[in-house]
Each structure stands twice: as structure tokens, then as C-alpha cells.
């Protein structure tokens, strides 16, 4: 099948997935579609669409690396590096706050559901499930004969225990994830029923998912009791394909094949050592020396990518990354003051503060930035909607947006605002994290070159930076989002007046909103969340996206790419390539 056919098929599948009445609790599916032990592709796509989690990228099978792969066999040992981190602080689902942690935990625990490489939820410890007509009751039949690593048998009590633990904010950070559950009923030892407060299409894919969901990742009662909370965080007991045999903070995690895993086909590799590696050169040295055969954790530093690509012993697999990075511009800063975005752009353009904002955004030479800052690995951004979202991504925005790169226009705006050539403009601080300092320097240089203004890069530890960002105590800040698979992730989390990142700790008397508030885009963002029709939703998404771009909610900078690096001796099958996750139980050694 060539690419054209692929895309055609994907488009029709997408249309079909979204073709239902938004008020229909079963999303155009019959009861039969919803029950069973494996959902059809159509059912899962439709569920995803209803949950707001379906994108073009998921419908399209990923591009495979071209290097030849040797034949796989079971057994052997694998050394992994977890990049950009000094230690794996916790593996307790209730406490996990970082992607790089649940990347590992997902291989240790079972959950009721687990997404596959199409980001569609499949039964894990749930053998089959049924949804009531009103979409409020999920009856789940549990897999029998599953044991925990410590030998305890898994049953409905464990589901109940996990649910109670995750519902308690004192014990878990993820109580919000299952906030829509009114009640969990144990029907018998291997059957439970979730009663929801209101229909939730994403219930299976988000709330019950074992890796990113975390709330219903099944923990072991016996294990917690025997080990204590602190030790459980290091060497947890789960029902997953791998068990932790050793974990010393700062030294790494040793995973060994769990012999009694319910799927006899998995895992394939006997022993996996995961070593946290902070620092670029040690990572490169370890990979090139062959000490490390697989890299997980934080994204591989971009300066190494081309070098790894030219290494015949390594496989580098690049996919569009689901995220965006921006220059956040404080509208309450005197020189960039905008107190009200609810005006037509032409009107806004008459305000000095807005002129400066727009000038900064217009001055961002995103191509140069990607080339210099990201060594060519990245995509210029003009909104939160990223190319991984395929269908929703707006190619035209790159030229149509008010904030499209335009050095002359930017200079003119600065001059009009009273700062010709940057003269008289105050020095600004650009807050970054220590890791994004370099990106900040490139941005500062671009702003200096184009606008003649002085921007000082100010790297701050994340703990300080986030505090200042939440308080709206910054001039400019470099930051953004990752793991955005759906328009909601970027728009709802960042681009609404009520967004959770929109200056939650600011002085609310002095600053009625955080970095951004605009009625028209608020309405569009809310509408797209509940709009099922893909074309209509795309229109709303792109409308909101365009408003945030034109009125400069921030200066959008770039979308990252997702890079997987491993040795040619490691075989990563198609079904193990879930963006952002590492299915260690499906990979094998040549």
C-alpha cells in the first residue's frame, strides 16, 4: 500500500470514528460493539474520538526505520539508559509525576486497560467489559489466574484497594483522574462495576489506562504492607511483565522477567538494567561504547541525533513530537502591557504594549531557531496544535498568522511603540530552566539581532521557575507542553482563561487574568471539546488556534520531535513503538 492509499484510508476511518451524535452516550456504537475482550478497530477509534483523544497520527501507521533488522530471539540481557535524569525517584503509581517514571512503571504493573501503538485502549487485567445503555456503568470482567510478583493472587479486592488509594489525595496525586467515578462495586471476585457521575468517553483510555493514567494501575496490598511506602516506591510489586529485583536510588533499576506473567509470549528479554544518565557526553559515550543498547527517559539531546544516525550500530527512529514550546510574554509587564485582549487585532495593534508583544513574536526567526537551537530537529510553531495531531494541524498558519516571522514588520512595530532599533527599551529577563538555557540564548540572540533589544537569559531551577510563572512574576519565559495528543491538551490546559497554567498563584486583584484571556477563543475552545464532527471540530480548533496566534497569547516557537535510539541488536516491533512509552516486554534481542 503506498502513502496515498494509506492517507485515504486513514481519512475515511477518522471520519467514521467521529460520525456520531455528541449527545449519544454510546457514541454511535451498539452494546455489542462495546463488549468483548478485544475491541474492533472501528470501536476503539470511535471511543478515542469520543474521548477527544484521536488524531490523524494515530490512525496512520508510523514510519518504520529502514535499517535491516536481524531475527529476534527470546532471552538475554539489555542495558538501557534513562536520559536526562539522575535517579528514578519513585515507581509508585500514586506518586509518579514524570513521564520517564511511568515509562518504567508501565512494564512493572498491570492496569485494567493499556493503550496500544495506535493509542487505543486494550484490555490488560480487564478480560472483557460491558457498558450500560446510558454510558454510566462499566462492568468489567477481570482476568483470572494473574499473580503479583510476590505470589499473591490478583482479584477484585486489589481493584477496590487501588481505587480507594487513588481516590484519596493524601495518598495519591491522581485523584482527579477518577473524579468522575461515583462508586466502584465489587460484584464477585473477578467482576467489578464502575458507576460514573456522567458519561465519559475517555473513561477506558484515560482513567483505566495503566501507564499515563496511573490512577488504576493495580498496586499490591501485600507488597505495600510488607515493604512500607518508601521501599515500595523503589521496588514495587505489580502484576506486570517485569519485576524489580534491585533498585538503588541513583544507581538504576534492575528488571527481571516475571515468570508467571499471564501472557506466555511476553516478556522476551530476561533481564533489563535501567541506568539513569544525566549529561550528554556520558550518554553518548555509553551508547557508542555499546554499554547501553536502548535509550528511554527524557528526549535524546538533539545535537547527538545526526551523530547517532550516522552510526551503523544504532537505529534512530524519529516521529513528530506531541508538544509545543513558546516564549511566554507577561502582559502585565509595563513595556508589554495588555490588559484586555477582547478587541479586534487591528484595535489591539494601536496599543504600545501589544505592538511590543507582536514585535517580539514576529521577530522569532523559527527556522533559524530550529537550525541553531535544535540542530535542525524540530518544527516551527505558530500555535499549540502540533503536527503529531495531523488532522488538526494548520499548515497555513505559518504564513497567515500575525506572528509569522517578519523582521521588517517587527522592527516597524518596535519603532511605532517608541523604541526605534530597540533604543530605550528596558532590558528583559528570559526565564528558562537550566536545560533550556541554550534555547533561550538562541532566542535572545534572535531578538537582539532583529529588534535590537537586550534579553538576558535567566536559567532557574524548575522549582523556582514554576513558582514565578504561577505568580506571573517574570518578563519572558521559555516553556511549553509535551504529550499533547489531542487539541484539548494544548488548548484547554494552556489557552483558556481558566487554564490550569494561566497564572494560578498570581495576585488576582492586580492581575485579573494570567498570561492570556480572550472571550472568543475561550468559546471556541469549549465548543471544540464537545464537538464530535471532525471537520467542525477542526474548524473550531483552528479558529481558537489562530486567535491565540494572531493576538499573541505567547510567541510560539517550535514543536519537538520524538526520537527513539537503540542498538541494531535490539528489535523494536511496530507494536512496541508507542509514542512516549517503552514497551520493554515486546522488544527482543537479535
Amino acid at each position, binding site marked *: 500500500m503506498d502513502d496515498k492509499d494509506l492517507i485515504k484510508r486513514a481519512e475515511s476511518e477518522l471520519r467514521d470514528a467521529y460520525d456520531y451524535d455528541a449527545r449519544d452516550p454510546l457514541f454511535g456504537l451498539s452494546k455489542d460493539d462495546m463488549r468483548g475482550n478485544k475491541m474492533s478497530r472501528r470501536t476503539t477509534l470511535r471511543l478515542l474520538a469520543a474521548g477527544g483523544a484521536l488524531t490523524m497520527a494515530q490512525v496512520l501507521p508510523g514510519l518504520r526505520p529502514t535499517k535491516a533488522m536481524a531475527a529476534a530471539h527470546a532471552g538475554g540481557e539489555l542495558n538501557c539508559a534513562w536520559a536526562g535524569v539522575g535517579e528514578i525517584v519513585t515507581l509508585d503509581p500514586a506518586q509518579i509525576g514524570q513521564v520517564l517514571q511511568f515509562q518504567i512503571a508501565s512494564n512493572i504493573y498491570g492496569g485494567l486497560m493499556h493503550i496500544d501503538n495506535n493509542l487505543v485502549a486494550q484490555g490488560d487485567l480487564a478480560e472483557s467489559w460491558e457498558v450500560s445503555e446510558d454510558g454510566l456503568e462499566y462492568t468489567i470482567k477481570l482476568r483470572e489466574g494473574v499473580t503479583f510478583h510476590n505470589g499473591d493472587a490478583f482479584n477484585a479486592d486489589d481493584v477496590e484497594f487501588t481505587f480507594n488509594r487513588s481516590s484519596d489525595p493524601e495518598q495519591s496525586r491522581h485523584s482527579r483522574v477518577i473524579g468522575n467515578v461515583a462508586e466502584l462495586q465489587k460484584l464477585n471476585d473477578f467482576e467489578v462495576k464502575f458507576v460514573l457521575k456522567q458519561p465519559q468517553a475517555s473513561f477506558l483510555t484515560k482513567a483505566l489506562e495503566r501507564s499515563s493514567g496511573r490512577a488504576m494501575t493495580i498496586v499490591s496490598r501485600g507488597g505495600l504492607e510488607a515493604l512500607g511506602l518508601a521501599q515500595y516506591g523503589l521496588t514495587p510489586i505489580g502484576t506486570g511483565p517485569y519485576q524489580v529485583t534491585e533498585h538503588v536510588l541513583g544507581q538504576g533499576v534492575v528488571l527481571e522477567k516475571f515468570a508467571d506473567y499471564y501472557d506466555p509470549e511476553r516478556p522476551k528479554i530476561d533481564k533489563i538494567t535501567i541506568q539513569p544518565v544525566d549529561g*550528554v557526553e556520558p550518554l553518548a559515550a555509553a551508547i557508542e561504547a555499546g554499554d547501553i543498547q536502548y535509550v528511554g527517559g527524557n528526549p535524546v539531546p538533539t*545535537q547527538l541525533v545526526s551523530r547517532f544516525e550516522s552510526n551503523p550500530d544504532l537505529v534512530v527512529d524519529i516521529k513528530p513530537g506531541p508538544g509545543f514550546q513558546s516564549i511566554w510574554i507577561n502582559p502585565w509587564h509595563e513595556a508589554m502591557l495588555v490588559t484586555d485582549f477582547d478587541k479586534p487585532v487591528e484595535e489591539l495593534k494601536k496599543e504600545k504594549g501589544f505592538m511590543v508583544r507582536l514585535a517580539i513574536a514576529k521577530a522569532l526567526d523559527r527556522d533559524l531557531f530550529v537550525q541553531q537551537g535544535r540542530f535542525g530537529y524540530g518544527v516551527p510553531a505558530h500555535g499549540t496544535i502540533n503536527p503529531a495531531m495531523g488532522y488538526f494541524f494548520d499548515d497555513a498558519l505559518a504564513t497567515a498568522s500575525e506572528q509569522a516571522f517578519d523582521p521588517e514588520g517587527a522592527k516597524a512595530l518596535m519603532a511605532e511603540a517608541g523604541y526605534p532599533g530597540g533604543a530605550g527599551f528596558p532590558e528583559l529577563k528570559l526565564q528558562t530552566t537550566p536545560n533550556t538555557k*541554550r534555547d533561550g540564548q538562541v532566542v535572545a*540572540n534572535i531578538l537582539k539581532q532583529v529588534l535590537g533589544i537586550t534579553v*538576558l537569559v535567566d536559567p532557574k531551577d524548575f522549582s523556582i521557575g514554576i513558582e514565578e510563572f504561577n505568580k506571573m512574576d517574570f518578563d519572558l519565559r521559555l516553556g511549553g507542553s509535551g504529550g499533547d495528543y489531542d487539541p484539548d491538551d494544548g488548548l484547554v490546559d494552556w489557552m483558556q482563561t481558566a487554564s490550569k497554567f494561566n497564572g494560578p498563584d498570581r495576585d488576582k486583584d492586580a492581575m485579573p487574568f494570567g498570561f492570556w484571556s480572550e472571550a472568543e477563543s475561550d468559546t471556541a475552545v469549549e465548543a471544540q471539546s464537545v464537538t464530535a464532527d471532525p471537520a467542525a471540530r477542526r474548524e473550531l480548533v483552528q479558529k481558537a488556534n489562530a486567535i491565540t496566534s494572531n493576538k499573541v497569547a505567547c510567541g510560539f516557537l517550535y514543536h519537538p520531535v520524538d526520537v527513539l535510539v537503540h542498538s541494531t541488536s535490539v528489535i523494536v516491533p511496530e507494536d512496541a513503538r508507542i509514542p512516549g512509552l517503552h514497551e520493554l516486554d515486546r522488544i527482543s534481542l537479535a
Partner: protein
Amino acid sequence: MMSDISAQEQVLDVPDMAPPKSRLRSAFARDRKAQVGLFILGFFVLAAVFAPLIAPFDPNEMTLDMMGRPSGEHWLGTDDLGRDLLSRIIWGTQISLFVGISTVALALVAGVTLGVVAGYYGGWIDNIIMRYIDLQWAFPNFIIAVYLVAVFGTGLLNVIVAIALAFLDDFARIARSMVLTLKEEQFVDAARVQGFSDARIMFRHILPNALAPIIVQATVSVSYAILGEASLSFLGLGVGPNTPTWGLILADGRSFISQAWWLGVYPGLAIMLVVLSINFVGDGLRDALDVRDTGA
């Protein structure tokens, strides 16, 4: 009857008791190592002073010639952002030497003042100051500096103050022990009898006589301060990303050195040469001023 009470008019001529300055000069004239040190140091000082004139490029000017090999245009190559490494190192000399010297100047003034006051007055003042110094003695200097930068935040001034505070106890200790000895000298009694103020006695009479070991300590401390700044910058606790310092150039280059060895080699070499030359000079001073090696 003035004649019979007048002294011999002959002035004693004792060559080995020449004034300290010329003693120093003659000691240095014999010390090859110290000469080499002074020469290298002079070279770097000139580079620092004339940085704007001799640096071939703007040290912060980025180009797309990233990680360019050393060439006729860029003698030491370019860094990961396409900036000229030579120019950055030349400008870095300015900052590194400034940090080294101003840190020690600050530590010296504060530490010596504390030490002199403690030693001169004794009693409860001495007790308070020395308990504080003991407390500081309980931490390795570098740990103190790391901690203080964390408290104050990064930046040139903060780094200088943090390192200076970390070094303060060394100067205080040396000054105090010198004062305790010198306090017993009769010229101090003489000064008190003449009604000189305590400040005048401490700083005009006692201190100048206590300078030799303090100068030696100061020299050595400059090198430690330069290394300290480099280490702090390396940990991301340094002067800040907008100022090229050697430690920062190394820290920034750290992620690229296997692709661009020059980023790892030259700034380190600059640090080493300057520290080496300061150590040479310090060693010469130690010999010339006859100060015992404290080892620290």
C-alpha cells in the same frame, strides 16, 4: 653639652636587612618559576585589559558555523552556537580574573578585619567571632559556596560574595594568629601609650606587620577562587549565562566536546595556565617572604 650625648653618626649598613620590597625583588630575580608565573599571568592580565581590542569577534555573536574546527578565521574554533571560542576565552579572562581578585579582596578585607578585631580585643568579641569561624570551618569551602549561591541565586555579584564568604575564615584565622603574636610587641604598647585609637593601632601598626602570610594566602586564594567559580559555573550555579567565564564555557561545551574537542580543551587549558602561574608566583612569594607552608 650636646656633644657627649650625640650618637654615632654612622648608619649601619646591613644588606641582608634591606627593606621588604627590594628583598622581594631579589628573591624573585633568583626564582625562575616565579618569573615564568609572572610572565604568563602578565600575558593573561594584558588579554583581560585589552579584551575589547584584541578579541577578533564579539564573544556573543552567534553564527551558523556551529562547532567549527579551529581555522585561520577562528583560531580556536567556534562553539555550539557558532561563537568564536578565542574571543570568548579572551573575554572570559576578564571575568575570571575579576572574580578571582575581587573575591579574594572581599574575603581578605572582611576576614582580616574580623581576625584582627578578634585577636586585638580578645574576650567575648574574640569568642563570638571565633565560634562563627569554627562553625564555618565545619564545612568545606566549596560546599559553603554552593549553598550560598543557592540561597542568593546565581549571578556575578552573588558568586563573588558566596566564594568570598567561603574563604573568609582562612583569612580571619591567619590574621588573628598574627595579631595574637604581634600584640605582644612593644611597639603596640607604645602606640597605645601614645593614645592612638584602636583602629589606628590595629590597621596601621599591627596589620602591616602581619601582611606576609596574608599576602601568600591571598595569592593562593585567587587561584582557588578562579577554580571555585569555574566549578560553580560547571554545576550551573555560576555567574549566569550571559557572561562568558571559563567555567561556563566549559560547562556549556560539556555537552558537545566529543564532537568539538576544542570546546573541552581550550577553556580548561586557560584555567590551568592561570591557576598554575598564580601558584608559581604564590610559591615564589612564600619563599621570599619566608612563610611556612600551611598546606591548605
